[in-house]
Each structure stands twice: as C-alpha cells, then as structure tokens.
C-alpha cells in the first residue's frame, strides 16, 4: 500500500523535474532539477530491490557528475549567455516526433510487456554484486578502469590552455621568512 504511494509520488517528482530540465531557460536551474530527478530515480531503484545501486546512483550521478556540470556552468558564467530561441519549425518537428515516439513506445509496452510479478524476493546486496564483479565480470571491470583513465587524461588535455601550464609556486619559497628571501 505504502509502496504504491511512494512509487507514484517519486515518479511524479522525477517527471516534473525532467520537464523543468527540458523547458527552463537557465542551465543552473536545469542542473539542480536534474539532481532532484536523479534522487527520485534512486528511490525507484530502492523500490526495485537494488539498494546498493540506489546509493551508487546518488554518489556517482547526483553527487559527482552533476557537480561537474554545475562547475562548468558556473565557471563559464553561462547564465549571462542568452540561448537564442529555437526556430519554430524545429520546435514543432522535434516535439511531435518525440511525442509520436513516446506514445508508440508506451502503447507497445502496455500491449506486449505486461509480465507476471515475481513472487520470491531478489537478493542483490553488495556481497553478490562484488562477487559477480570480481569473478564473472573481471575483464570489463579492468577495461572500464582503463577507460576512466583515458577519460581523465583526455579531459585534462582538452581543457588545458595552450602555452604555460597551471601556475604553481613552490611551497617552501612561500613560507620562507628569512630576510634575504623577502621581496
């Protein structure tokens, strides 16, 4: 009974904030609404008996990726850049094709994807996921870690300014109080 109430409430929250992301002009408001949407999706994951992934969703998506988005928006001072209005023909075609796609998808889901609910509980704690990751999925695990390394190196190279590197001062030179080293 309470499960249904929680499901409908957080599903509504997720959809409302996703709509704000799509519609609102200000990217900071969009980023914060997306955080709220991700948080309600994490609640959905708890309802799907995957609490480990729910916590990971908040830690990784809401807590790290969206912080990255917010930093980029704030550092580039993007709220002063006014986004020009989309041409009406693009808006019309975009919304109608997406709506047609969505309606078609939901129709076919209700027609063909209605399954019997499983009766036994699903045990998906940290131990089972850890065992699966380190036994069956060890190769993709290591490959993803190399992928993340490549992403870090790529992000640093792409956003570095041409010319000199980051300004660095020697720590010892800064705290040195001897008279001959004072400016």
């Amino acid at each position, binding site marked *: 009974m309470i499960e249904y109430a929680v499901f409908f409430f957080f599903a509504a929250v997720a959809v409302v904030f996703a709509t704000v992301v799509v519609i609102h002009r*200000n990217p*900071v*408001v969009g980023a*914060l609404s997306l*955080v709220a949407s991700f*948080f309600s999706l*994490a609640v959905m994951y708890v309802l799907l008996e995957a*609490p*480990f992934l729910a*916590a*990971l969703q*908040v*830690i990784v998506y*809401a*807590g*790290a990726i969206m*912080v990255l988005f*917010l*930093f980029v928006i*704030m*550092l580039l001072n993007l709220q002063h850049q006014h986004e020009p209005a989309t041409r009406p023909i693009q808006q019309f075609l975009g919304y109608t094709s997406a709506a047609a796609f969505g309606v078609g998808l939901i129709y076919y889901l209700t027609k063909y994807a209605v399954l019997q609910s499983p009766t036994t509980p699903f045990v998906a*704690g*940290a131990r089972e996921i850890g065992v699966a990751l380190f036994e069956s999925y060890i190769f993709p695990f290591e490959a993803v870690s190399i992928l993340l390394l490549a992403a870090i190196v790529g992000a640093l190279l792409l956003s570095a300014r041409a010319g000199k590197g980051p300004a*660095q*001062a020697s*720590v010892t030179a*800064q705290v040195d109080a001897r008279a001959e080293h004072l400016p």
Partner: protein
Amino acid sequence: MLTADNVLGVVKILIIVGALLNVTPIMVWVERRGSALIQDRVGPNRVGPFGLLQSFADALKFILKEDVVPAQANKWLYTLAPMFGLLPALTTMAVIPWGRAFPLHNVRVAGHTFFEQPYLFDPIVTDANVGILVIFALASLGVYGLATAGWASANKYSLFGGIRASAQMISYELSLTLAAVAALMVAGSLRLTDVVHAQTGYFVLFGAVKIPAWNCFSPAMWLSMIVFIVAAFAETNRLPFDFAEAEAELVAGYHTEYSSMKFALFFMAEYMAMAAMSALIATLFFGGWDIPYWNEPATWWASLLTMGMFLMKVIAMLLVFVWVRWTIPRLKYDILMKIGWKVFLPMAILNIILVAWFIARRWI
C-alpha cells in the same frame, strides 16, 4: 497504521532530530568558551551563569535581524541554498546506531499493557543493508548547498568561495570513503550495526592483557583513522581546511550575502554536520555504543548506559574539533587541494591494500 514499528520509528526520528537541533546552541557556547580558554581570555560570561544563555541571545538576534536579499540574486535558489545545506546534516544520522538493542516486554502505560509479545527496540532509525553508502550518498549532496549559495548570491567573491568550497569537499570525499572502507573490511559488512558488533570483542595481548577490540586500538587501522579524521575536517569545512569561508580572505566566502535566519541555517548546518561526522567517527573507529570491559545485557537500563557512552564519545570528538580549530593555522588553498589529491588519496588507497593484506594473513 499505528503499528509498533511506525510509532517507535517516529519516536526515534524525533529523538534524533531533537538531539541534532540542540547541538548548535550547545556547540556555540562550547566553541566560544573553549576558544577563550585556549586563547587565555574569558569569553562570553554576561548572559546567564558562565554565559550559558549566550546561545539564546544569539538566536534572538538572528530572528530579529533584517533579512537583506541582494537585488540581483536569484530569489528561489538564494532561499533554497541553506536548506540544501541542512539536508545531509539531518539525514546522515538516520543510519548510525546510538545504543544497544533491547526487547520491550509488557510495558504498562496508563492502565494499558503494550508489547505482550517481546518487541526488539533497535536504537537506529533505519538499519539499511547498505548503511554506510547512504551516509556517503547524502554527504555528497552537501556540495550543492555551497555551490548554489555561492552562485545565487550574484557576487563574484561568493562565487569563488562557493566553487572553492565545493572543489575541496568533492576532493576529500574520495579519501573519506576509501579510508572508511578499511573499517568496513574488518567488520565484513556495510551495515553500521555490524561494524559496532565487530568491535565488541577483545584483543588479547601476550595472553594476559585484554584490550577492547575497538578499531582505534588496532595498529593496522591507525592510518585509516588519521586519513578519515583529516578528511572529516575537510568535509565539514572546519579549520585547518576552512579557506573557503575564511574571514580575512574572502569576507565570508559563499555565505557573504546571507543575513539573519538564512545565515543561521548555514551556521546550524555546519555544526550539525560536525556532530554527524563525530558520530560516524565514533561508530567506525571508537566502538560506537560499546562500553569497554562490560558485556552489556539486553535490558533497558544497560541500553540507556550504552546511549550515554555513545553521547560521551560524540562529545569527545566534538571537543577535538573545537580544539584543533583554535590550535592549528589555516592551510592555504592550493596546498589544501594538493595534499588532498597527492597525499591523502594515495594514502587511503595504500591503506586498503595494507588492511586487506593484514586480513588475509589473519593478523586482524
């Protein structure tokens, strides 16, 4: 609807929220008198005996002050930012165990007898299977309070302060999480009740001396304890890591433009986060609610004593927070970020390997 679970759950939530809301006034007094003691002066002693009512005077001042909102601030986000700051502070206490579980049996209240069947009362609001991940998840949401406050104030110095504070928090979150993994490896579970139960035994030294099996007494855990406590200081933006809100450098950083109750909310959020972090440190490293050298029976009075013990450990850790604030100078921001990534993160990762080796060799 009015089941024992629901009613007692609400009672536990009220106890925790009540305790957390009271932390701020008490800590304000402790901070001001403690700093005065360390700096060889007296501190507030006019309002009430020993200045104990100073917090009430401060609260009254905050409520009655004029609430100034900058003209170009984004009104919605400016008002929401302090509430984002309170979210992690209040919710992380939900999975921390603050006492020993005991059965409730035949409780007589006003002529009615409740609990004919014994009901196990576990003093933890929710004993989640992935307990500690919930704490890290909610703590990582604390970044948004700072970033939003800095941005919504429409002030360049606030923006820089907010970005600096957010960058510092996300950098030290990594070391915090990895250092806590060591304590979890020893306990073998993510639930904090299991972490406390793993610390209720004893280490036997030289066949004769019994030491409580708290993680702080085991040499393999000392490195993780140091990294965790330092990262906890950085997470709560306390000295020596409070450059982002440093008084002399950035006016007041991300909360420069905030006045009266909104500023009071930031203030409260900082002290409540400190209390939640102290509770977590006490649980992970100092044995939680365990009273040393006593096998606590499952009765209500023993459970109350364990709650008192937990409170004492949290208070001790809070005093350490205050003590360090007024002893150690503030770290410069680039040094702070440099050691966060280049010193503490490698130390935390090496610590995991070290503790894993110790566990494999059965030395723990």
